[in-house]
């Protein structure tokens, strides 16, 4: 039994990376978008659209990486559409986000019908567990390449927000549109670009779902991960590096059910599977108080104004 518990722990850690990777990309995308002062709830649709586009392109071209790129571009287009709509007077970004979520999933289902059956080439993984002969450890150390890309993106995003003129402009626009206009910054253009870039990252997150894990294209693929990313970003206090840790935490929570099942604990399986959603709910309740505002929140976000 002792070894069994170790097995669970290892499986949870491996699962954290496996299930957390799409969370990582979507939350980094949402983080960048929110830094510019907009919330994009449409990322749920972007994720599904990215999964479909990535799968289709990978199937037709034979290159999963080309699929990832196209998924990103599809996400970018959806992000640009969202922020373009939001730049009109009196258009609310949350309402547009919900519309974009439905539009993105609907479009993906419509275009993706032919791809439910065939099998596309898979994204490669890197075998970091070759030195070990414990099968569970070997399995857990099968690290997917996109996760490593995600770490690089998190570091790069942190650096960019702090050290580049572009990053500084994004933050100014997110903190105070008035101040940004006084400085002569094109507020709408910066927001459109940030949201499009955020959409690009979310699209990549989607391609991971269809091209690595669970590695198929179906309609129930994302199960709300795009929406949970909003809570993740709040929990991460709008810091890209914290998005990395929080994504792993959520991934680990989601892996708990299957891991326990693997050692024969099947009771309460559905409850364990609901843990990420329960955690999301808990974060929203704990962080949202009428008496306090959050530390680090970009001031232009409509939910906080």
């Amino acid at each position, binding site marked *: 039994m002792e070894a069994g518990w170790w097995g669970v722990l290892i499986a949870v850690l491996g699962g954290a990376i496996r299930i957390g990777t799409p969370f990582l990309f979507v939350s980094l995308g949402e983080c960048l978008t929110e830094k510019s002062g907009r919330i994009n709830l449409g990322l749920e649709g972007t994720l599904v659209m990215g999964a479909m586009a990535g799968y289709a392109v990978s199937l037709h071209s034979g290159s999963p990486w080309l699929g990832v790129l196209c998924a990103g571009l599809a996400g970018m287009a959806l992000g640009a559409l969202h922020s373009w709509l939001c730049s009109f007077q009196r258009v609310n970004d949350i309402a547009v986000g919900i519309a974009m979520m439905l539009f993105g999933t609907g479009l993906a289902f419509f275009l993706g019908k032919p791809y439910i059956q065939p099998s596309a080439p898979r994204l490669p993984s890197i075998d970091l567990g070759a030195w070990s002969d414990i099968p569970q450890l070997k399995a857990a150390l099968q690290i997917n390449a996109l996760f490593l890309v995600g770490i690089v993106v998190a570091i790069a995003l942190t650096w960019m927000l702090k050290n*580049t*003129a*572009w990053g500084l402009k994004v933050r100014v626009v997110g903190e*105070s549109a008035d101040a940004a206009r006084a400085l002569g910054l094109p507020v709408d253009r910066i927001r459109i670009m940030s949201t499009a870039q955020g959409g690009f990252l979310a699209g990549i997150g989607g391609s991971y779902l269809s091209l690595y894990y669970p590695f198929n294209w179906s309609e129930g693929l994302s199960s709300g991960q795009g929406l949970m990313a909003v809570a993740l970003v709040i929990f991460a206090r709008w810091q890209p590096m914290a998005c990395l840790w929080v994504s792993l935490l959520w991934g680990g929570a989601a892996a708990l059910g299957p891991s326990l099942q693997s050692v024969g604990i099947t009771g309460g399986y559905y409850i364990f599977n609901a843990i990420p959603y329960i955690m999301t709910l808990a974060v929203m309740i704990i962080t949202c108080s009428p008496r306090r505002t959050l530390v680090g929140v970009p001031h232009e976000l409509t939910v906080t104004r």
Partner: protein
Amino acid sequence: MNDGAPPDLQALGITKRFGPLTALKDVNFRLQPGQFHALLGENGAGKSTLVKCIMGYYHPDEGQISLDQQQVTIGSPRDAQAFGIGMVYQQFTLIPNMTVLENLVISKAKLTPVINWQKEEHQLTQFMEKMPFKVSLTARVSSLAAGEKQKVEILKQLALQNRILILDEPTSVLTPQEADEMLGHLRAMTLGRQLSVLIITHKLREVAAFADDVTVLRKGRFVGSGKVSELKITQMAEMMVGSEVTAKPKQRNDRLSKVPKLVLQDIRVKNDIGVEVVRGVHLTIHEGEIVGVAGVSGNGQHELVEVLAGQRQATAGAIRVDDQPFQPTREKIRRHKVFCLPEEPLQNTCVGRMTVAENLAFRNFDVEPHAVGGWLMSRPALCRSARGLIERYNINPPYPEIPIQSLSGGNVQRAVLARELSADVEILIIANPCFGLDFLAMEEIRLQIVAARNRGTAVLLVSEDLDEILELSDRTVVMFNGRLVYETTSPGVDLAVIGRHMTGHAA
């Protein structure tokens, strides 16, 4: 800063119309190199319009602007900056969640794609060494006091190498000491001919102490200018208002009783980010007494007023009215007659898109005669009451059926005061009632407050304007860092002592 004197700025025959309204009519103005020039006038006199014409926000319909006798066209604030003209606005334009360094860097005209923070910090440190006042570059702006923020605004303009500095009521958020310090530094820089300063202000004391020259506008027209050394304060005030000044001491009757009306016991309040900003306030206010709470903004006054108005919950402590526990519910407010005039009333206690009549009835729309039988609204009754209040309190324009947000700031203030004073009032809580009002509106509102006191109302007056507190209060307390740190009865107040307590420098 580059060498040489600042340019000679002249505005000749400036006229600016907004539709049928003429905001400026043939105004002349000159700011000579190294001058410290005050622009005086009531709200709506055209000061801001004139300055915005110079800054390129507005384009004058007639007249011209010249620098060193060369006619120039200033099309935008960016152009003004290119000519070396910078402006410090009444509201802060800094980004609170960023450091001073980041704020100074972002305001530069040209940014390199990758920012070399070490180099920027080094350059700005060197620049700061040449400046008469210092601010920590690594501090987050939101953690700075108002005076410090004002300094950063000025440093920002100077770092951009601007030689003409326009300041719009820069001292309205500062303590007397902070104001004197800042104006003193600017004065020194103008004496050294490094800088010309144009300052918009209501405060005649500051004009007399620091300015060389003064120009007065009234109703969009130039009414006079001259050397400050040759003018008396009363003359300047007369130019501003037009007739003789009406700042008479308010008629007070002797204090009626020693009956405590409002008692605060150990009130503690947390702010929006969970920090305790009111840290144990004890205060008793008696019948027919005005207690003024002085203090620099951000020392907990705002949250204290919110608690008394029912907009925020205290974490500890008790409010007692007439020796009974008090919670600001609609029923208790009505029973104990506790009313409130918070700061920025349009945002805080009005619904901008609802009509004046509806806003005036917020306290009593659910009782007879406005609500027949307690539930059916009667619009004729609403309008009748509104007309009465509009007439009594001089609300302009006098139409009950227009949205309240279409009224000017002074008239919104009058409307809210009318609503809060319309019934019997036993306790009145007021915050910054005259912020942004012109002289006459200010006088009127202060008279109403004193009149309420004379009728026996207990008044708690929270204000950032020390002159206002000293003029109105029977008793003054100073709030610093969440506590009441000093108390004095109003005759024989020492301004310097109050100022020291306001900044926490009283040992």
